[in-house]
């Protein structure tokens, strides 16, 4: 299978061509305001570099920060209605109660509370009231809103009410976009509802962006299908992504960590992605990034997305190096993308980390003579400072005392010299485009998060049921059944509940089924 992986970042659009597990070519192009031009440029460049015909490409996988940026910058968001089913429960906090005011205003901030919802064990809180929902539909129509997020209490346990309400709205308001919270998030009502609302407000934009990607691919003559990568490092097809744009949040760091695992052939490791301004550090478990356990904010809104637990520090290839009072200070300020004009080695006047690396003789870049004045002592102390900064964040990301290797990727990888905190360092080939590689190798997943009463069915049966549901979810998402593996099983006993109520999370992952 020949595939292209693309990572559309804020500054660069990277692309790679892969044949099976081999990287044929990798390129970097500038991201453009219209997205499409940058993607076309990257596609053309990578096809040329790989000497491949466009017709030979089977699939294209795209990782993008476009939707995250839209929310963060409050632009291109549709006016949205949030409907919650659960009355009388949850009436104390209306939808969007903890949103920043400007974002709430940007999406119209219309919330409704209606009857419905379930208890933790599936019992009904109150039955759904069709007349009530039709009244809400009427109001939504009068406000000219065409996208609705529906959230029912305990819908991760059973989502019948969300589906029923969705059908009622679809019938009453033909052509309306409907987002069900149970398709997106897990237990934790406000966070799941927030994610559903953000998804709903991105539906107009997602239509536009997916169309731009489709056009870019068609324009270069590629006939294969295309997919987008999600925050957990797995794929969704273009049609699905158009419905669930929110699932692309945080796919950038995930792709670079997955790419690092793939390029190095190591599944359990710490990954350090060093860019121009910052380094992102996270840990890989079975080839996937370990996820954050606390609520993650996106654009000031709490969500419970499956986000990689990444720690960032201000250290990159363009970081300023300053000596004050005998101490060396590296970063957090940086020349960023202006490194090609401002660093000493490129004829500029600012001393950067890259200059020090070139002065040390470990790497050849730009004009070496411009850094000949740096003393061996200064070089050594700067190196020591850089390594101690890296050691500090690698230590934070370690999950156990076991000596894991450290995989270093990204354009700033040249900063690393020798082991970090006694841990072996791996710098794989194609390290600069690891994120595009991560997109190209993305798999397909299915996940469940349910509460089981173990007193009734027993732990083994509960886990088997959860695994079965996760597997079916993966197949539904496009995974090849024979390749499916259960990569994560977590069961947490719920304190203060009898009947051994236990929350079970299972994730299944498989290879993309093409054809």
């Amino acid at each position, binding site marked *: 299978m020949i595939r292209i992986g693309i990572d559309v970042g804020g500054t660069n659009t990277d692309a790679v061509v892969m044949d099976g597990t081999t990287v044929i070519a990798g390129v970097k192009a500038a991201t453009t305001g219209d997205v499409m031009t940058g993607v076309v440029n990257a596609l053309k460049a990578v096809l040329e570099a790989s000497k491949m015909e466009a017709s030979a490409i089977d699939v294209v996988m795209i990782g993008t920060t476009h939707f995250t940026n839209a929310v963060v910058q409050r632009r291109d968001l549709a006016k949205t209605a949030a409907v919650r089913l*659960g*009355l*009388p*429960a*949850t*009436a*104390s*906090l*209306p939808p969007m*109660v*903890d949103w920043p005011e400007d974002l709430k205003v940007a999406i119209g901030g219309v919330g409704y509370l209606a009857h419905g*919802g379930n*208890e*933790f064990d599936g*019992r009904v*809180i*109150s039955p759904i009231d069709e007349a009530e929902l039709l009244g809400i539909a009427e109001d939504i129509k009068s406000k000219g809103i065409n996208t609705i997020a529906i959230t029912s*209490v*305990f819908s991760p346990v059973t989502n019948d009410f969300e589906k029923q309400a969705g059908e009622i709205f679809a019938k009453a308001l033909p052509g309306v976009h409907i987002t069900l919270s149970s398709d997106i998030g897990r*237990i*934790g*009502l*406000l966070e799941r509802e927030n994610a559903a609302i953000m998804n709903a407000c991105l539906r107009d934009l997602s239509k536009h962006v997916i169309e731009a990607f489709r056009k870019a691919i068609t324009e270069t003559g590629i006939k294969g299908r295309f997919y987008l990568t999600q925050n957990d490092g797995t794929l969704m097809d273009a049609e699905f992504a158009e419905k669930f744009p929110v699932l692309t949040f945080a796919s950038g760091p995930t792709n670079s960590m997955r790419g690092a695992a793939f390029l190095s052939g190591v599944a359990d490791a710490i990954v350090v992605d060093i860019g121009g301004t910052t380094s992102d550090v996270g840990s890989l478990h079975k080839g996937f990034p370990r996820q954050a*356990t*606390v609520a993650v904010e996106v654009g000031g809104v709490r969500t419970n997305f499956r986000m990689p637990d990444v720690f960032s520090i201000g250290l990159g290839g363009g970081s300023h190096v300053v000596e004050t009072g005998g101490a060396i200070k590296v970063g957090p300020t940086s020349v960023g993308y202006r490194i090609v004009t401002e660093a000493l080695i490129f004829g500029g006047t600012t001393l950067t980390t890259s200059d020090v690396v070139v002065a040390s003789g470990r790497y050849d870049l730009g004009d070496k003579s411009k850094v000949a004045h740096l003393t061996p002592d200064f070089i050594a102390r700067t190196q020591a400072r850089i390594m101690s900064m890296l050691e500090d964040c690698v*230590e*934070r*990301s*370690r*999950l*156990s*005392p076991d000596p894991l290797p450290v995989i270093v990727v990204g354009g700033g990888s040249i900063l690393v010299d020798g082991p970090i905190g006694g841990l072996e360092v791996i710098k794989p080939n194609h390290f600069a485009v690891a994120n595009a590689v991560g997109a190209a190798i993305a798999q397909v997943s299915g996940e469940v998060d349910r*509460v089981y009463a173990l007193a009734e069915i027993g732990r083994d049966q509960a886990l088997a049921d959860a695994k079965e549901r996760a597997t079916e979810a993966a197949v539904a998402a496009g995974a090849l059944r024979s390749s499916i593996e259960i990569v994560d099983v977590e069961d947490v*006993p*719920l*304190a*203060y*509940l*009898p*009947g051994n*109520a236990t*929350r079970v999370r299972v994730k299944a992952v498989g290879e993309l089924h093409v054809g």
Partner: protein
Amino acid sequence: MSDKGYILKEADLHPLSIGAALLGTGGGGNPYIGFLRAREVFRQGATVPVIPLEVLTQDDWVGEVGGIGAPVVSAEKFEQGDEGTRALAAVESELGIEVAAMISGEIGGANAMEPVITAAKLGIGIVDGDGMGRAFPEVQMCTFFIYGGGVAPAAIADEKGNVVVYKHVIDMFWLERMARHTTVDMGATAMLALPPMRGDFVQKTAVPATVTQAVHIGRTVLKARKARKNVVETVVEETGAKLFFTGKITDIRRHLVGGFARGEAILSGLGDWAGSEAKIAIQNENLVLWVDGVPVLMVPDLIVNLELDTGEPLTTEVLRYGQRLAVIGLPAHDLLKTEKALEIIGPKAFGYPDLTYNPLEGKAK
């Protein structure tokens, strides 16, 4: 009541929730949802007077409500909004009284917010104090019960309008057992009103000024964050807390015993404690801190883990390998240190028969 005290405003709620989380000593539940609920009530124009203990009189009745249930459920099915007032109304009508103020049974964690919400709805005040000055895993570990408070009538209310009143209950253990059972029927979250108490009893048995303390701690944390100052240092300088250890978690063990999350965290020292090792025993809350094998802090004194860089108070369930912590201690109030109290909330009561309570004052550097 008198005009002493002050008015709690919307701007105080966020600091209160942060201070309550810190006083939760690793447990007590997350006050986030409660903070949002209180804020909604305050935004409709409510203000709540904070009443110092000394102005309570024998004629005043003081009500106590608190959330009961599984924290994971309350993050999904949170309150309709009037559960607290309904439960309270049931005990009031049982006794034929009206309460003049509300008090929290447990300032540490989620239950710091409930009396505030109920008081705001009823247009009454809250007492500046609580029954623990911190968090403990069980309802009976509260000064009101340690010093002879009644256990009936009590009432439990759900979001649907159901209210169950316990008219006669022989002791706190039975109330806890029955209330837990009913809570599960109600969908695993409910609001429990305990028997209203006379003002003079509260005056003698409540841990004083803990609402003020929580707001002060929260303001200190927020102010330090805003000024980009070191939060841990600022908290130690300005709140009477003492620093006992800084280190990194090198091992964490957990097990569920009788519905309670027990465990221990092992830390290897950083900074002034480089080369030392510490151990923290956990049962929902932090119970004992040993440094190099010597017990230096123990219940009922407050043991709080702050994330070293951000000063964020860490609950025991989020502790994991590699986290860097500052362990700070705050002295428990004298009411928690009497012989009678230590029988229920001292180190022996939590399963450490070899430890004799050694109070915090004057021990830290």
